[in-house]
């Protein structure tokens, strides 16, 4: 530094680096020593890091680092740790009956949480993320159950599905296509009668003949009082909930050419403990019996 030819800035009294641009000179102020040492420390750290951890990109993969660390392996380890932590509860859910699980508040809460997460993966596609369903897909929050709302009944429905070909225990029923069997006026009259059970029909004159047609053709499944039958998965027609749509036209459409929902059987796919968790979760949504 003791270069006698070094230019010293007049204003600050600091020597310059000797670089000059159009008369502008650069003051030669040193970095603070602690700053410099910190900078060197980061360089040393970077070298150590590059050796210890994956860092340099090669043609097909990055260098692996001597520690053998990978973020994917870390996730896998965390997942297996989480699984191990849940193992006790999962085992009890596998071995216990649903009613026993529900009698234990802690285990029930675990099942509800697990069921909620399984629901988002497997069920939300049809029933919606809030389990509120939609036209043709039942709302699982309410208190109307086509096939029963007790936890065991819900379990049965989830495990074996509805109209699921290839499962011997699946829930099956089929509503005939009355478009081929009844005259259009009879169908209209029946729809007016069904609508009159919970509201005002479009034509009160049709209610009486419709009631007769209902008794002859529909009551065998939907019941004489139209309150449905869970044996056949026949919906209650005398309440406020309409799976296939509300109003006389929707009733006429369903009578003429009925639509039948299909739900897969889940037992083989996701296993008994998860089906139990789902049943307990669905039961907890507010409509469970």
């Amino acid at each position, binding site marked *: *530094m003791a270069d006698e030819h070094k230019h010293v800035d007049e204003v600050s*009294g*600091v*020597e310059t680096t000797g670089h000059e641009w159009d008369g502008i000179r650069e003051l*030669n*102020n*040193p970095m*603070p*020593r*602690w700053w410099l040492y910190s900078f060197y420390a980061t360089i040393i750290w970077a070298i150590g890091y590059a050796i210890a951890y994956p860092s340099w990109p090669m043609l097909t993969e990055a260098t692996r680092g001597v520690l053998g660390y990978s973020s994917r392996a870390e996730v896998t380890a965390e997942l297996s740790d989480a699984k191990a932590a849940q193992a006790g509860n999962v085992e009890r859910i596998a071995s216990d009956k649903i009613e026993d699980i529900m009698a234990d508040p802690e285990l029930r809460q675990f099942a509800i949480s697990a069921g909620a997460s399984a629901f988002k993966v497997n069920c939300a596609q049809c029933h*919606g*993320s*809030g*389990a*509120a369903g939609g036209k043709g897909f039942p*709302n699982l*929050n*309410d*208190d*109307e159950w086509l096939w029963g709302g007790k936890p065991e009944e819900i379990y049965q429905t989830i495990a074996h599905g509805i109209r699921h070909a290839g499962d011997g225990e699946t829930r099956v029923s089929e509503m005939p296509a009355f478009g081929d069997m009844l005259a259009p006026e009879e169908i209209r009259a029946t729809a007016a009668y069904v609508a009159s059970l*919970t509201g005002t029909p479009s034509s009160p004159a049709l209610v009486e003949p419709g009631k007769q047609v209902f008794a002859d053709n529909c009551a065998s499944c939907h019941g004489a009082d139209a309150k449905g039958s869970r044996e056949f998965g026949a919906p*209650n027609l005398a*309440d*406020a*909930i309409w799976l296939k749509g509300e109003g006389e036209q929707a009733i006429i459409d369903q009578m003429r050419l009925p639509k039948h929902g299909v739900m897969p059987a889940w037992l083989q796919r996701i296993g008994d403990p998860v089906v139990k968790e789902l049943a307990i979760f669905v039961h*907890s949504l*507010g*409509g469970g019996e």
Partner: protein
Amino acid sequence: MLHQPAHKAGSVERLEAEPVNAARQRRPLYEKRRKIFPKRAEGRFRRFKWLVMLVTLSIYYLTPWIRWDRGAHAPDQAVLIDLGARRFYFFFIEIWPQEFFFVAGLLVMAGFGLFLVTSAVGRAWCGYACPQTVWVDLFLVIERFIEGDRNARMRLDAGPWTLDKIRKRVAKHSIWLVIGVVTGGAWIFYFADAPTLLKSFVALQAAPAAYMTVATLTATTYVFGGLMREQVCTYMCPWPRIQAAMLDENSLVVTYKDWRGETRSRHAKKAAAAGEAVGDCVDCNACVAVCPMGIDIRDGQQLECITCALCIDACDGVMDKLGRERGLISYATLSDYAANMALATNGGATAIDTRRVRGANGAFVDGIRHFDWRIIFRPRVLVYFGIWVLVGLGLLYALVSRDRLELNVLHDRNPQYVVESDGSVRNGYMIKLLNMIPEQRRITLTLEGMPSAQMRIAGQGDGRSFLVAIDPDKVTSLKVFVTIPKAKLPEAEQGFSFKAEDPSSHERDVYRANFNQPAAAK
């Protein structure tokens, strides 16, 4: 230079001490740091600093070991920051995460307290209470104990590496490291039950975070307190820069009174006999030798000065020996200093002449201004104090009036409502009951408003009021369904409230809730 024997100035020993930052000899910026070997000072400020050191270090090291019984459901450590459980305990106060504003408020108070102290008495924080100052002081005690005082240390430092030097250095750095470990160790005890953590820490079974924290704090304590010392204050700390805005001409700062000290002379008697104007300063350098920042206070106000006042002690000692008044270096305001300087220099027309400030009998003339304590109570200081007090009172009010029972309600959004088979409409709510005391409680949860509505809690049936057991010091979650019959749906427009009340203490919290219904039903 360092090895020259000390001269004598009258009965006062003259010390060879060069300030590190003297303006009169500018040093190259690339020059290495000049080591500072502060001499031991004695006097009232030194005694006060020992006391502050004792109190602050005792608070820091011992606080985690104070016990405070809170019953079976909460830890019995008086001061505990339980990060895992998100709780902060301070004696009788327990803070939940949402009450963190208390800590923010304390930090605001600390900030304004710092402004207040700085505007009144300058950088008192830097000089007395800053951890950097306190730990450097502690490290210097060790250094002096092993290597001796200033001269011995300078000789040792400049001398060759003998066995004795190695022994002393190893001993010094080992003790420093031990202090570092203890310092870092005390820190972690604030975050877990101290006795339990100590056992597991010694048995090498504590969490890795504990060891890493101790290692980091050991390193910072050792490096900052032992190796870097004054460089932390001069180069790293932003506070010396900020303080300029806090100080004004009426703030008390450590001041060398040129107007009485100059012209300084090592041969005062001879000069006085020759009829020259001689000041009180005998240029003994005692003030420079004791300075932990290595500066010369006689150069005036400097960024490096932490106002530790050790130069005052040193100078007072010298003045006592010489039989002159104390206070050649003392706490003074810059306005007093400027007025006295004007007097001594005849308004800047001449050099300092002490004959203008001293009468024939040797006493100061009447025109000399002395510190008037009333200047402390000037608007700037009072405003800081007022804000500080207001924040404190606000916090105190918040603390006294805060609830220990809280009700949080999350209205279900998916689905927003459910139509039941009988046409009634149901809404779901997740209710969280915060029991913020470490005792089991039974509270009533009541639905108020919407007279036809019914509330349902899983396993408890329907009703409009339930008795709910809530766990000590925990959040209890409840899924609650509220249903309105079809015929009464217009009631939903009114909305309603959930009320949680402790029947024994009548502590309560009310949450105003909405009720959603299908658009067609409106």
